[in-house]
């Protein structure tokens, strides 16, 4: 309520006489108010009724026709000002982002230092890293099987043959040319996964208590894993009785990621790219027991022992297979 006069009061000396007079009037007008204030201050804190009254006046002052201390015109002006101000700021924000985005390539991010070396994930993935089921109860392993089927749909042999080309194994599949050119992708047929392909055994061994788990390496644009030597996978029991994990079969080719699937060129040009997989067939695991297993990537440039990141170059999951 005091706002209008608060500025005036500052530079008292500089004001013209006419303003002076005006100010005096103002002060006179406010005098009774002031005395009331003082009285209240003397009496101690204000009562709730006073506060409510003041609040009401603040919300809507019928005499000066002000709402929240401002008249309609004042509100209009201030809102207009902020509308323009924020529009300009938003414009500047948009412009800055636009300019920044212009400098970026749509196909390759400028920096890839935070995303490499690659992380690792497994399938089936339902909602955690514990795969627990009872062989005798299909409904306990059926969701895993469904997840596998769903995931491998993209690796269907026919689909792969249709969309992707056959590449030369054992070497990186480097595709030159313009960034914006569409890149070819190499075939990765699910049949390569043999016992874990789900073709012969649609239950991926779950029905026999010998589950298949697929392991995939995170995609990183331009990344060439292993520096010429294919990255391989091994698994062992994590902190526990080694004998609980007696045999694992790896497909394809002893559990390696073939070089021909790399490098990756990004989702805009490498449209049909399908990540290569390694299937791990846990053919002999201690039953009725929580078996923590760590599967690691091994290769040059792969980091698999970082304490803070338990998914970098390795993955830890638990198998609990019941009868």
């Amino acid at each position, binding site marked *: 309520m*005091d*706002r*209008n*006069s*608060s*500025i*005036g*009061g*500052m530079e*008292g*000396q*500089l004001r013209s006489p006419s*303003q002076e007079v005006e100010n005096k009037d103002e002060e006179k007008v406010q005098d009774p108010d*002031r005395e009331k204030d*003082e009285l209240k201050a003397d009496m101690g804190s204000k009562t709730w009724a006073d506060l409510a009254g003041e609040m009401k006046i603040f919300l809507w002052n019928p005499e000066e026709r002000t709402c929240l201390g401002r008249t309609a015109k004042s509100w209009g*002006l*201030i809102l207009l*000002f*902020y509308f323009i*101000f*924020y529009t300009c*700021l938003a414009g*500047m*924000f948009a412009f*800055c*982002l636009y300019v*920044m*985005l212009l400098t*970026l390539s749509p*196909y*390759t*991010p*400028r*920096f*890839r230092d*935070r*995303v490499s070396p*690659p*992380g*690792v*994930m497994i399938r089936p*993935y339902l*909602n*955690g*890293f514990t795969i627990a089921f009872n062989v005798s109860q299909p409904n306990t392993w059926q969701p895993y099987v469904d997840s596998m089927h769903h995931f491998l749909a993209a690796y269907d042999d026919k689909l792969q043959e249709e969309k992707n080309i056959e590449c030369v194994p054992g070497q990186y599949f480097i595709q030159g040319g313009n960034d914006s050119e569409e890149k070819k992708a190499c075939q990765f047929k699910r049949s390569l996964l043999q016992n874990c392909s789900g073709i012969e055994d649609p239950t991926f061994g779950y029905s026999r208590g010998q589950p298949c788990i697929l392991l*995939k390496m*995170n*995609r*990183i644009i331009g990344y060439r894993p292993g520096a010429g030597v294919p990255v391989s996978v091994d698994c062992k029991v994590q902190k526990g009785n080694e004998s609980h994990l007696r045999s694992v079969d790896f497909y394809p080719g002893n559990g390696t990621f073939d070089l021909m699937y790399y490098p*990756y060129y*990004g*989702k*805009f040009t*490498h449209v049909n*790219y399908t990540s290569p997989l390694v299937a791990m067939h846990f053919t002999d695991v201690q039953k009725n027991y929580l078996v923590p297993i760590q599967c690691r990537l091994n290769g040059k440039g792969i980091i698999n022992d*970082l304490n*803070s*990141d338990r*998914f*970098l170059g390795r993955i830890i999951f638990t198998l609990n297979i019941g009868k």
Partner: protein
Amino acid sequence: MNVGCHTSNFIHVPRSRQFGNKNFSSLMLCSLQFSVSLGMQDDHRLSTSDLEKKYGTSIDKGLSSARAAEILARDGPNALTPPKATPEIVKFLKQMIGGFSILLWIGTGFSWISFGIQLAQGVDSAFDNLYLGVVLALVVILTGIFAYYQEAKSTNIMASFSKMIPQQALVLRNAEKKEVPADQLVVGDIVEIKGGDRIPADIRLIFTQGCKVDNSSLTGESEPQSRSCDFTHENPLETRNIAFYSTTCVEGTATGIVINTGDRTIIGRIASLASGVGNEKTPIAIEIEHFVYLVAGVAISIGVLFFIISVSMRYKILDSIIFLIGIIVANVPEGLLATVTVSLSLTAKRMAKKNCLVKNLEAVETLGSTSIICSDKTGTLTQNRMTVAHLWFDNQIYSADTSEDQTTQPFDQSSPSWTALSKIVTLCNRAEFRPGQENLPIMKRVVVGDASETALLKFSEVILGDVMSIRAQNKKVAEIPFNSTNKFQLSIHETDDPHDKRFLLVMKGAPERILERCSTIMINGKEEPLDSEKAEAFQTAYMELGGMGERVLGFCHLYLPENEFPENFKFDTDSMNFPTSNLCFVGLLSMIDPPRSTVPDAVSKCRSAGIKVIMVTGDHPITAKAIAKSVGIISATSETVEDIAKRLNIPVEQVNRREATAAVVNGMELKDMSSEQLDEILREHSEIVFARTSPQQKLIIVEGCQRQGAVVAVTGDGVNDSPALKKADIGIAMGIAGSDAAKNAADMVLLDDNFASIVTGVEEGRLIFDNLKKTIAYTLTKNIAELCPFLIYIIASIPMPIGTITILFIDLGTDIIPSVALAYEKAESDIMNRRPRNKRKDRLVNEQLAVYSYLQIGIMQSVGAFVTYFTVYAEQGFLPSTLLGVRVDWESNAINDFEDSYGQQWTKYQRTYLQWTGYTAFFVSITIQQVADLIIRKTRRNSIFRQGLFRNKVIWVGIFSQIGIALILTYGLGHVTALNFTPLRFQYWFVAVPFAILIWVYDEIRKLLIRRYPGSWWDKNMYY
């Protein structure tokens, strides 16, 4: 004054606030008399031998050391107990829960609660909340300790000050005279006092020789009172045989028995009484409270609003609580209160250099908002020493130099009359310099003698040189000292002319008495008969000098004829065997306690600063008015009612009181005034002098001023001033003349007793108010840039742009030194040319400041920081469009192949690390923009270029520290993951630079428009 003096009143006094302060002074008088009659035994009535018996002492031998030690152990040391201080632990706890600390404790509580819940649920990241809680608690405790330390430090300054002057007393113990510290005195001790000493305890005198005491610290009467061993009055306060603790012995010597020590002395009782007057809250404390409420209000309402929003957006309650913590932490400027304290103590230090010692940090600003100063006259406005101001001889008035460091006197000294006058001045004077001061300037030398004799001695020393040798050459043969019946002083000397064997009789005294004894007058060295025309001229001169408020002395001489008074004549002062009439009148000298030379300038500064200076003095109205006129408290053109009446030749009652701008109010008149009448005087007159006032009336005047809504500064030195000093918004005690009680009651101590120092204090106070505004504006701005990330995180579900810990690093790391640096900023314009701030309207943090900082610069900063944030993510593969709505997946621990805009896949930790990079980038952007914010806050109205970018070097220290701390955090501590900083690519430091420039340019435009269009809509809404 005659409020019923009942015992019951006194009993209530320590809880006196229920009585209202108006009655306080009268109560005090009553209670004083009451306590005296009850507490102070009848020692003044007892005979010496009874006293010896009563106190088990002996006048010849004193107490034995053993007995003294015994009594000392029983009664405690002879010192006033300092006013009961708040226990340190209470002070400390106050710092812990004051201000924003409560909010942060709430945040801490929430953190720990959510830690508990998450721990029970087995969430991995539960410990983050525990740490956050610990960090928040640490922040509160550390800032609390800091504030406490600052306060303790400023209290210590004061403590060391009061210990500066250890007092010694000459006491008789074991039949031996020895010096002991005054606080070792005990009841029954026999002490000796001599001129210049402070009385070390309440003393019943048993032997005196020409002893006079200055009781002004007790009663406010400045005339020295003589003391003897006789019981002269029933009331111990009035009787002559008691000397009171803390008064001074002006001249003579005395021996007495200590009858009261420490708090049981009269002064001690008054001092403990004064502590009953409550201290008002300082204006800056009110402002800071207002500011804390404002920010806390914003924090809580935004917090609750977004709590509701996040709950209704189906966030988990626990998450919502964590958001709430973030919002509170972002909203609270954790470092600000510490910054304010530092700024205030920096100013206090600066003021101490200019002789204003501030006891209470907040008083620094109070002085700046002062609108009325009630000043003492003696010693504050004046030099506190009589000085010869005018001379009259040869029918002409000459003015003398009254400045503090005079070395010559410029008036015409060629007349032979002057030679004669100077001889009288030199010879008819008993004052002497204390030996061993030859190297000191004359004005600084210590003189033994009363005030006017001292003035005359110094005056002649300045003009004639070595007075003592002149006196030696004119050997004194007889003397009659001044006494109040004669009203003259006379001495007879041999002359220094070896051929002139006549004696010279010199006399000085009250002019009219001197003139009565004269038959001739000296004009240009010749004796002329004193006819009525010449007597008329004398009268005119006497009236004129008297009208200037000066003490006038007349001088005459007579060369005694050689035949009647041969060389070996024996003068007898009792029988007066020499002539004391038909003398030759030589001239008049008038003396005044002249104003300090710096005061008129200081008063006019106050005037232009809109501060009313009111003089409150115990002196005579004429003197008071004369001094008021000469220092400008009453300006040359303004008239009092009496002046107008005299000019128009009408009775005083017919004068239109509104025409008179000045008023001289006598204490007698004040006594009969109702408070309404006093209010009217204070309101209607702009220039007021209160004369002949008692210290008690000072309190009434202060209360009157406060009723006008003024912020009142009061100066005082006596013990009886302490209630007024306490009552005033800022009490200023005199460092040299002030009593300990006054210093205790005051908020500030003037080390040089000089009024001009108050004015420099006012200037500093106003400057710090302006600069605190700037500091707060600077600090508040980035709170929005810290808050926006949370709000957008909740609403748009983007990865968290900035972490709670990071926010604390801004608030308590990079921003601290810059915000203190603003305290060093010079004033933008002449701050002494504007009126004192109106404490009701000119708030420290007003709506404009908050709105401009929050909604304009703060938003700009947020936008700039968000541009950096989006840049960092985009260059790593997450385009802005991808980020929207990803929060749940982004924060999922299970998703370790999170796909970015380019098809790459991220583990959780990789994302988190990127998120920390985002924090760092956001942090760096805010820091960079805070540099711009710091620069724009240097001024509120003027262009930065006018203020000068490099004038305040500390600002640059601030900027470099800010950037330095940011560099250390990002690169030095970037590998300590707990702090959530990561090394940042160099280019990201520059993303926000365009926005920093925008902030600067925008603010320059704002200031330009404010200057161009004063009073416009823009000015009203944009000037803070």
